[in-house]
């Protein structure tokens, strides 16, 4: 496989989806071009309502697109939805397991739905129970599970037929840090087994830690795409975040005109300065503020994170939009 162009598992062109809402046409997804290659963990990043889930549900055959084309797992989305269903796994935000049923029963039933014999489904259910360390809870009703146990079962349901492509819609939302780390481990081990993973998240650290490549979606359009490193590098240099006593506006206006400041923003009562070399810029900033009689309250220098990428691309911070 070395040297060959990696095979696309998802390829979309102009994918769109409109909803009617109170006589108004709303474009939830407004022309998305995506390319996800075999074996990668692809992160789809954006605030709530940006079109992440809508895109995911279209690719998983749950929602027909209003326009555009897509190929998923080697099949055409418009004409071969049932072939796609055989090859993909999907774990929705709500999960998908029934409170009244045990993990074992759910996993066996899921296996049967993919055409396994009763015996094969039993074996596969046991394998997944072992793999996801659900043995202690496997025969209890799902309603008694902890959040982390339930999420592991939901992921297991998506893995029963060993799909080549797995969709995870916000897999760690609402989980405690420990369960979250467990889910990350599961995603990594799927990746090691060669499964392609397409996940949505509004946690930047999750995308940063887990994903080979990331696309940022906002208002139904992709605003940036690349490896987390590439995206961060696109924001040249470092970010200085400072605040002064009184109006931030004055500090912003002062800094905006400086040659060493590539870009400046006021955000959440802080002034953000994008500079080439933070350690050189810092003394200059301090001098300028002193000279203008602005009293510095806080100052911080950091390497750009995906949050800065998001802010730069969309003009908003993901932390405040993601409730």
């Amino acid at each position, binding site marked *: 496989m070395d040297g060959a162009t990696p095979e696309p598992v998802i390829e979309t062109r102009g994918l769109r989806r409109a909803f009617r809402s109170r006589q108004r046409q709303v474009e939830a997804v407004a022309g998305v071009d995506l390319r996800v290659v075999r074996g990668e963990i692809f992160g789809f990043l954006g605030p709530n309502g940006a079109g992440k889930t809508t895109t995911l549900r279209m690719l998983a055959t*749950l*929602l027909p697109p209003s326009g555009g084309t897509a190929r998923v797992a080697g099949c055409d989305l418009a004409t071969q939805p049932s072939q796609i269903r055989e090859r993909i796994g*999907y*774990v*929705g935000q709500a999960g*998908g*397991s029934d409170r009244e*049923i045990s993990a074992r029963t759910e996993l066996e039933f899921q296996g*049967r*739905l993919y055409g396994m014999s009763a015996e094969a489904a039993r074996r596969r259910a046991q394998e997944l129970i072992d793999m996801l360390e659900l043995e202690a809870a496997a025969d209890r009703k799902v309603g008694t599970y902890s959040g982390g146990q339930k999420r592991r079962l939901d992921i297991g349901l998506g893995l029963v037929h060993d799909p080549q492509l797995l969709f995870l819609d916000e897999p760690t939302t609402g989980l405690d840090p420990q369960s979250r780390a467990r889910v990350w481990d599961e995603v990594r081990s799927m990746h090691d087994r060669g499964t392609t993973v397409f996940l949505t998240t509004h946690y930047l650290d999750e995308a940063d830690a887990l994903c080979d490549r990331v696309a940022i979606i906002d208002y139904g359009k992709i605003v940036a795409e690349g490896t987390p490193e590439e995206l961060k590098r696109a924001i040249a240099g470092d970010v200085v975040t400072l605040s002064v006593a009184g109006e931030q506006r004055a500090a912003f206006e002062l800094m905006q005109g400086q040659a060493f400041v590539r870009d400046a923003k006021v955000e959440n009562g802080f002034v953000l300065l994008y500079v080439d070399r933070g350690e050189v810029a810092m003394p200059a900033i301090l001098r300028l503020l002193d000279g203008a009689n602005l009293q510095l309250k806080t100052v911080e220098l950091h390497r750009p994170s995906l949050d800065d990428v998001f802010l730069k691309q969309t003009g908003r911070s993901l932390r405040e939009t993601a409730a």
Partner: protein
Amino acid sequence: MKVLRDTWLVFGRYFGIFIHNPVWVFLGVLQPVLYLVLFAPLLKPLAATRGFPPGGAYNVFVPGLLVQLGMFGAAGVGFSLIAELRAGVIERLRVTPISRVALLFGRALRDMFSIVLQSLILILISLPFGLSIHPLGVVVVLALIGLIGLLTASIAYAVALATKSEDSYAPIVFTSTLPILLLSGVLLPMSIAPQWLQDIAAVNPLLYAVDAARHVFLGNIGDPAVAKGVIILAVLSLVAVVIGARQFGRAVA
């Protein structure tokens, strides 16, 4: 055949849930039994009224109770579906290659089973009150009530999938079942109704079901009204299953 295999799997799943909560069977029978004990005695003097069908109060009233059981027993099935929609269960099932018809039909078959079982219990309880019925009649009546259950459950599921919320589902289902029930001659036979009421009732399929059931209880299984009732319900059930299955196949946005 894939549809049959899938239907069997889905039936098995919901039957498993059902069997773990058998209390619902008895709660379902409780209401008709209350009617039997607290309301049917009022009909006894009325049975002598002109226009009241022959056969005695219980042979007229129990068929109506059974039809009511068939409809009310299945009208509420959408609540569990809405809970499953919320838990993502339906979405998860729709991503698998499972047949969309099976998603509806497997569930509705479980509901049919539950209703037929309740009907049988109600018939047995009614016997000491003076109900008389031929064993073959029991089979025909249970088939008829089963069809009513299938019809109502399929529509209830379609409504649940379309509304996706208990707040819209409950008023739609309960305000539409009441006139259907009142115009079916369940409580009192429509033969004693004024003409204009009978004219409206004539478009109510459940009227024909009640009519068919009453003839069966009178021992007239060969009466054309029986075949008519069964055929009307079978055709409507088929249509309802198709509509419900399409609703399962459609996007649940």
